[in-house]
């Protein structure tokens, strides 16, 4: 793989790697953070009206900042890998438009539903649900398209559509995990039931993807199924399986405990799901590196001038710790069970 890489002691060699890591982490932060609030949005469809309000309250202070990670991730793609940006977003034109419409609908529905006429509230609730669903599914679809190198065969489209469904299930699982932490009483127990159902679909989805991905992409196949890679990589699927088992066990035990008011282990489903996302992300990063567009454009081919990257890197090095700092501050302010939003 290294024959593709230029001299790593030069700025033009190592900077794209650094930015790929930063972009990857921003995307990962987005998927985990907005993932739970998109999941809550999708689960809302199945909740009673009172529970809908509580569910919204649990994500109210956060969703806006969560979504900003997407802007950062795309921003890095836009600014550091300008050549890939046009190619990728051009190829993903329709799913990107779908995602944007979905994000727009849910972002505004969040505010409108409590401010508009009371009689319009069910309408905005539906918008919130369908926007969350549309955005989640399109994101999964885009991931699928990225893996297949934007192939437009029927198989590739079907593959991407299935990944879309898998991501919907995974977001629901994480949303349910979030609700187990942030809610109480009947809603909390309901969240456990939601989590169980989502878990089933998530496991099926991830299993299907793991089998299909190497089949769809020959270059990913050769990266995974060669010696010694396959032995070194084995811990990834193994650890994923263990985490799924942990979530399963925890969801079995939680109802009894929670009914007694015992919150011990309420964090497990959410935490373990985040773990699954980390592992899936790691596997995906390994599969794609160093390609931005698989088999056609590497990070070095797509990178902008080193001096422009340097300017951004300097800013990011100073500001990112601050961002993380006040994000932690915000989560601490709203620590604990969510209460009715009031302002």
């Amino acid at each position: 793989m290294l024959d593709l890489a230029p001299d790593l002691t030069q700025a033009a060699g190592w900077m794209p790697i650094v930015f790929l890591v930063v972009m990857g982490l921003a995307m990962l932060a987005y998927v985990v953070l907005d993932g739970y609030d998109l999941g809550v949005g999708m689960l809302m469809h199945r909740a009673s009206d009172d529970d809908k309000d509580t569910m919204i309250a649990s994500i109210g202070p956060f969703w806006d900042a969560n979504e900003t990670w997407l802007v950062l991730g795309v921003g890095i793609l836009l600014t550091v890998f300008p050549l890939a940006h046009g190619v990728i977003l051009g190829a993903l034109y329709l799913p990107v438009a779908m995602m944007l419409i979905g994000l727009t609908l849910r972002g505004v529905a969040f505010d409108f539903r409590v401010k508009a006429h009371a009689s319009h509230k069910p309408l905005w609730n539906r918008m919130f649900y369908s926007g969350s669903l549309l955005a989640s599914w399109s994101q999964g679809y885009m991931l699928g398209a990225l893996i297949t190198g934007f192939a437009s065969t029927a198989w590739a489209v079907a593959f991407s559509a299935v990944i879309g469904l898998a991501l919907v299930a995974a977001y629901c699982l994480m949303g349910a995990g979030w609700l187990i932490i942030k809610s109480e009483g009947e809603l909390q127990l309901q969240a456990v039931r939601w989590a169980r159902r989502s878990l089933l679909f998530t496991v099926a989805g991830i299993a299907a993807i793991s089998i299909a991905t190497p089949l769809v992409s020959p270059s990913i196949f050769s990266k995974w199924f060669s010696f010694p890679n396959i032995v070194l990589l084995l811990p990834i699927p193994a650890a994923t399986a263990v985490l799924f088992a942990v979530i399963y066990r925890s969801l079995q035990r939680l109802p009894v405990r929670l009914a007694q008011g015992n919150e011990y282990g309420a964090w497990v489903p959410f935490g373990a799901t985040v773990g699954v996302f980390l592992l899936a992300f790691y596997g995906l990063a390994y599969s794609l590196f160093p390609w931005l567009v698989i088999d056609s454009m590497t990070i070095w081919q797509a990178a902008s001038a080193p001096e422009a990257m340097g300017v951004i890197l300097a800013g990011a090095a100073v500001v990112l710790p601050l961002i993380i700092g006040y994000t932690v501050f915000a989560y601490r302010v709203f620590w604990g069970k969510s209460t009715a939003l009031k302002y």
Partner: protein
Amino acid sequence: MEGLDAFLLARIQFAANITFHILFPTISISLGWVLLYFKLRFVRTQDQYWMDAYQFWVKIFALTFALGVVSGITMSFQFGTNWPGYMQKVGNIAGPLLAYEVLTAFFLEATMLGVMLFARERVSETMHTIATLLVAGGTTLSAFWILALNSWMQTPAGFEMINGQAHVTSWLQVIFNPSFPYRLTHMLLASGLTVSFLVAGISAYRWLRNERGAEVMASLKTGVYLAAILIPLQIVAGDFHGLNTLEYQPAKLAAMEGIWKTERGVAAVLFALPDAEARENRYEIAIPKLASLYLTHSLDGEVKGLDQFEGKHPPVAPVFWAFRIMVGVGMLMLAVSWATVYQLAPWKKDPARTLTPWHARVLVAMTFAGWVALVAGWYVTEIGRQPWLVTGVLTAADAASKVPAPRIAFTLSLYLALYAALIAAYISVVFYLARHKTHADRPSGAGMEDTLNPVSYPKKEGAANA
């Protein structure tokens, strides 16, 4: 031919998007500072009505902010989907400027907004004030970076072209390019005016509905006084901005003024139908020599006409008309704000009664006057720089993507429907809040805790309707 259609559609889509987007940051930039003002007045005086005003306007702020965020995300993607050539050519300059906006402003606003909206009972009063300050500062910082980039595209400086790509030679020159100070000032004042008329209009609406308590009057006065102060400043800033345009973008200025031929002693055209075929104005009403006077400060000064830029000047009619709409609305703002200040003057004993219903109705009618002037102004600026995307460096046609026309047409119709619905919903909800956020929804005398929370508020509404 198909390529051309796709190009046109991509432009319409992007224009629709930036038009929709700019409506909301324009409000949040200045409304953030107005909120800070309300909050500080409350902290200083402990008069509850300042906090009531804060709590009313913070709801509109939250709504506006959400619309700004979602439309802004759309824009960041459309750079790539619609104009891939843009980042390829000037990405080394546009990239860092956009990245700095996200890093320094976007996260700050989005995170602190949560604290500002929902955490007044969870953090100290000082921390809540600081959160308000950080949100206001963040929105303004956003405007700083975006206008630096926009101004650079209009009047590029501080770079050199190597192998067809722009490379920075001086970041100071890039950011503080020749039109940046004027454009930033003009935009911030436009934002202030949009908000002052919004605040005045909504308060006048509540006043007309017989809500004339201290909170409404404080908001009304804040809006009207702010407008009265800002509009003369805006006229001066606009004049300086125009002189800057004359120097750096003479083709745009000629289109704004409807000047077809380079001449001395140019007349100021008040009304005309610019005719691009005949390259002249029809039905022109003009004041002789006036344009030379205000553009060159000499009755006989020479002004470059469109004949100097044949084939490389913007379409004249839209720029010409948009400019007149902007100036016209500005004049109206001047008249209305000063007349209202006179009526509410401090020497009159009870301003709640000195305002006349007629006057209040004019203010209500002008609630979104700022939007009209603002969009017209942006069209002058953005259409006026055509055919260039980056003046002298990159044309819009060269930056366009190769996405097929039907695909763009499909998403364009979706976006347009969505935007129309959302603007209608936004305006109706703002007025709805003004009608229904009354003191009736809290128990009389039960402290001053105002609640508009998703749990209790809609239910009470429903009960009231039942």
